[in-house]
């Protein structure tokens, strides 16, 4: 199943003009500056914009095309709006049950109680919407969308109003949902962190157009795109669990000719795992550093580099065995090391984070 969309929507001076082919599984992040048209695109996919605006196919089903238009209520999308948009005349429970009751029992893939627990809504169930805090509203909105048992989940900055801890736990839940429910998600976010954390596929928007679209690993490290040059620039790579330090709860991960030690953070994992490596956590050296242990060091080849600001550059490195990482270093170091495409060197990683 893939999602193929082609829209042209004009709103005054703003024009959204996209032609997209998205994978029909996993999480696709929509990323772009404020006002670039992310919400408009999501609305068009949900059928909330005029149907004359384009063509949309989800799997083998045509959702809209000239002359044909599946109305929103038959698209079975779960939509988490940018502003929570809850029903003020219903209690929290009433809001949650709204879509739940309307979804055919056969299509339900998750139980009411599961969702309530997942989003920590038990104490709020009988509350009215008016007294809820911003974060609580957002959680109710996410739960409501999940409970409608959608075939496609559209989420517009669902975590923006949440604190770090809730966001973290929700991200984990969403990651788990992605695995168990196999609902494809389109996920709008302003946070590069969430992109790296959650997304498989990334769509980069700018001023109503698609700037780039592709697998997250690829796009995050392309130095011609703004992501690699952001303060939070990071790479996502795959590594293999090579061992475990039971005493200190550390994992030994093998990757690209090197080995990392990574805090286990309470989860037992086996086989292949995904890791996030921040560009600023990667230092470069021409020789394998001798003073430190071999840990967290691996050989790499410079692929490209780009300037971040006056003082810093970001370097894209190809890693042995596939994958890319980024390194942000001062221009001075880059000059000192003579960084140029093709140069072989060693990357030292200060810290990595385990995903999913």
């Amino acid at each position, binding site marked *: 199943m893939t999602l193929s969309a082609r829209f042209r929507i004009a709103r005054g001076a703003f024009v959204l003009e996209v032609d997209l082919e998205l994978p029909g599984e996993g999480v696709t992040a929509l990323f772009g500056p404020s006002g670039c048209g992310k919400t408009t695109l999501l609305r068009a996919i*949900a059928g909330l914009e005029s149907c004359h605006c384009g063509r949309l196919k989800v799997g083998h089903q045509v959702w809209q095309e000239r002359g044909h238009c599946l109305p929103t*209520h038959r698209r079975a999308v779960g*939509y988490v709006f940018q502003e929570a948009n809850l029903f003020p005349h219903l209690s929290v429970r009433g809001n949650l049950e*709204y*879509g739940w009751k309307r979804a055919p029992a056969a299509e339900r893939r998750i139980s009411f109680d599961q969702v309530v627990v997942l989003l920590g809504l038990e104490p709020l169930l009988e509350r009215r919407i008016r007294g809820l805090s911003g974060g609580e509203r957002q959680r109710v909105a996410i739960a409501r*969308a999940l409970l409608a048992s959608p075939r496609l989940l559209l989420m517009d900055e669902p975590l923006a109003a949440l604190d770090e801890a809730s966001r973290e736990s929700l991200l984990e839940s969403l990651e788990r949902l992605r695995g168990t429910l196999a609902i494809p998600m389109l996920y709008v976010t302003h946070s590069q962190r969430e992109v790296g954390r959650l997304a498989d596929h990334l769509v980069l928007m700018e001023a109503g157009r698609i700037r780039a679209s592709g697998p997250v690993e690829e796009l995050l490290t392309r130095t011609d795109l703004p992501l690699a040059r952001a303060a939070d620039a990071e790479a996502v790579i795959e590594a293999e669990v090579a061992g475990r330090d039971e005493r200190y709860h550390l994992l030994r991960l093998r990757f690209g000719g090197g080995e990392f030690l990574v805090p286990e953070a309470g989860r037992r994992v086996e086989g292949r795992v995904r890791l996030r490596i921040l560009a600023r956590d990667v230092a470069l050296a021409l020789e394998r550093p001798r003073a430190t242990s071999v840990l967290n060091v691996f050989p790499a080849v410079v692929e490209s580099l780009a300037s971040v600001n006056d003082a810093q550059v970001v370097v894209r490195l190809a890693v042995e065995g596939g994958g890319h990482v980024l390194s942000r270093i001062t221009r001075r170091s880059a000059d000192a090391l003579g960084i140029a495409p093709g140069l072989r060197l060693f990357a030292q990683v200060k810290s990595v984070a385990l995903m999913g």
Partner: protein
Amino acid sequence: MLSGADLAALQVTLRLALITTLILLLLGTPLAWWLARSRAWFRPVVEAVVALPLVLPPTVLGFYLLILLGPEGALGGLVTALGGRPLAFTFSGLVIGSVLYSLPFVVQPLQTAFSTLDRRLLEASATLRAPPFDRFVSVVVPLSRSGFITAAVLGFAHTVGEFGVVLMIGGNIPGETQVLSIAIYDHVEALEYTSAHWLAGGLLLLSFLLLLTVYLVNRRWSVAHP
């Protein structure tokens, strides 16, 4: 104090007001919805036409209705041609007249309520698989509660007090088309002031209790579901 005729009139009145209010809500709701959302150029025309019956004195409106419903009138002719009973001097005729005359009191508050509704809630409801009618019932109606109450109260009360139209096309037949307002009027005209006072007082009390109940229930409801 109250004669049998008065009681019959009370009964006719309540039946008329209830049926009229019901029909008005049924007709007025889609009309008001259309008025609140349509962008058609002729919407203002329809809006003006809906309010128009108001500016005619009810008796005069009744007079024209009488002509319209008569055997030579457009509507009456049609009805009799189709084999129906003539409508003048029947309860059905009263209902038609009352509906026409009270229509704006029902349509306009509903339109006000609908047009202040947050559309995004309807969008939310559509993404939650609710088809249009379901959306209307589960989102629009509860959120426009206050508009519906206003519409029903104005429609009902106005039909109870309504007089000229009913008098004209009803023919004041006791037990059939004589309503309470006419009965009170008759008492006043006949200088039977005591009966008029009693009847008017009773009507006021009854209506007051009815209205009070509506508003109390509404208030309780709104405390529970604000």
